[in-house]
């Protein structure tokens, strides 16, 4: 499966992903700039902040409560904000597009 990151300079980066990983891990493994993953995916640092494009909102699920608490304290938060360590890749997300916010 493939996922696409829209970077802060508006260029895009499409990468191969295996199902069953945190989207943050996919980004870090591919050195996607703007996704640091400092806390290792515990929804505790907000360095994996992305905007999820509208057609993918439902498939990516709801924010967790820890995620919500971190988003309450983060820059540039919008309605479509997610911490991408809280999104797990699966076949249904093949073709997913997210925008990297940066922290």
């Amino acid at each position, binding site marked *: 499966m493939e996922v696409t990151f829209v970077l802060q300079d508006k260029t895009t980066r499409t990468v191969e992903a295996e199902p069953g990983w945190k989207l943050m891990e996919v980004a870090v493994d591919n050195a996607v700039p703007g996704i*640091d993953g400092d806390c290792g995916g*515990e929804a*505790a640092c*907000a360095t994996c902040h992305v905007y999820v494009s509208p057609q993918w909102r439902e498939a990516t699920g709801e924010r967790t409560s*820890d995620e919500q608490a971190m988003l309450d*304290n983060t*820059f540039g938060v919008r309605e479509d904000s997610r911490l991408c360590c809280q999104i797990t890749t699966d076949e249904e997300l093949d073709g997913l597009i997210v925008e990297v916010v940066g*922290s």
Partner: protein
Amino acid sequence: MTITDSHDAALTAEQAEARERIYALPLESLDPANEAHYPSGDIHWVFERLRAEDPVHFTAAEHSEYGHYWSLTKWDDIRAADTNPKDFSANGIITLARPVPESMTEEEMEAQRRQGITSLLSMDPPDHEIHRGAVSEAVAPANLAAMEPLIRERAGAILDGLPIGQEFDWVDKVSIELTAMTLATLFDYPQEQRRKLTWWSDVITSAPGPGRAVENQEDRVVAMNEFFDTFNDMFTRRQSEEPRVDFLSLLAHSPHATDFTDRELFGDGIVLLVGGNDTTRNTITGSVYALSKNPTENAKLRANPALIPSMVSETIRWQTPLTHMTRRTTRDVEINGKIIPKGDRVAMWYVSGNRDEDKIQNAASYIIDRKNPRQHLSFGFGIHRCLGNKLAELQLRIIWEEMLARFPEINVIGEPVRSHSSFIKGYESMTVVIPRRN
């Protein structure tokens, strides 16, 4: 055991003896908050032992001048507490404060009370979000990008002014200078008086005493009042001026400004001041020190300047400029097999978690190209995670880019003088010589 705090060499006789001494003490008497452990670096033996023998450690009042408290020393326990503000409240508490002596005067009590500040760092939700949200724009990505050229210009000017072939104090001439300039910008405080900000921060974070920022409690009260008045004055002036992106203006123009109490505003001011001062200053000094003690790492960096960001993160881990934050339990909480009673104080020792071998391989070693250098506890985790972390990293990155462009070597002479504090892990002074320019 052949690893020391600063490098991979075998322990010196002195270090081996210090370690033995710590291991010979009765376990229950160990008091990680005891400042005496810090200037020598002995604190790492205390934590090494606690992680192995008593990771959730209780220090009774008879063994500590801070009164009784608990210590978390393992990465996982620290992360669990830091991300659980419900059970581990930050309300009104940041560090372990000493109990109030009975002999205190009214004025001293007032100063003490101000110091036991209410601030964004010592608030629980929802107040926390309001205060943090008010000031965060000053260190938001857009503003940092705008500050970068300014910081680079200043860093260059500082470095160009350094003496060549002559001993000088790196802390004073570089680390304090750069961080004070940045701080003055963030507070929109007159640059000519920037060292005042540094001094206030030092007064706040260190106990009075000979050779310290202030000699005695009275001088401390005077200094705190002076900061309080200055801060208040600036806040009032900002209210009648156009909104800008300095901390005071952001606070003054927050939609919640009228709800903020004096005490909260003062607390926010202190946290922003200290947060922007010691941490970055001591990491800058720490990076020069660590690289001089680890020639292989230094060579790696000079051969490949692309390692600067990873070196910066590794230094922030290795240095851990703030040793801990403190919380108070809101109920009886079980953690790692121990029950911490409701209302007790809990110190989350980042400085120990950052050396936890269960989480970080070769944790005592300084390795600038280690895997996952960004995974460290120095900024904390959860809702109170350091607000200025990116600004700290930015300053470190820039000063190193400018240093590598100018100086082929920087030699540390002797050992630095370390801070006498169990909260700020830093350096009072460090003598260096720069033999020549590129």
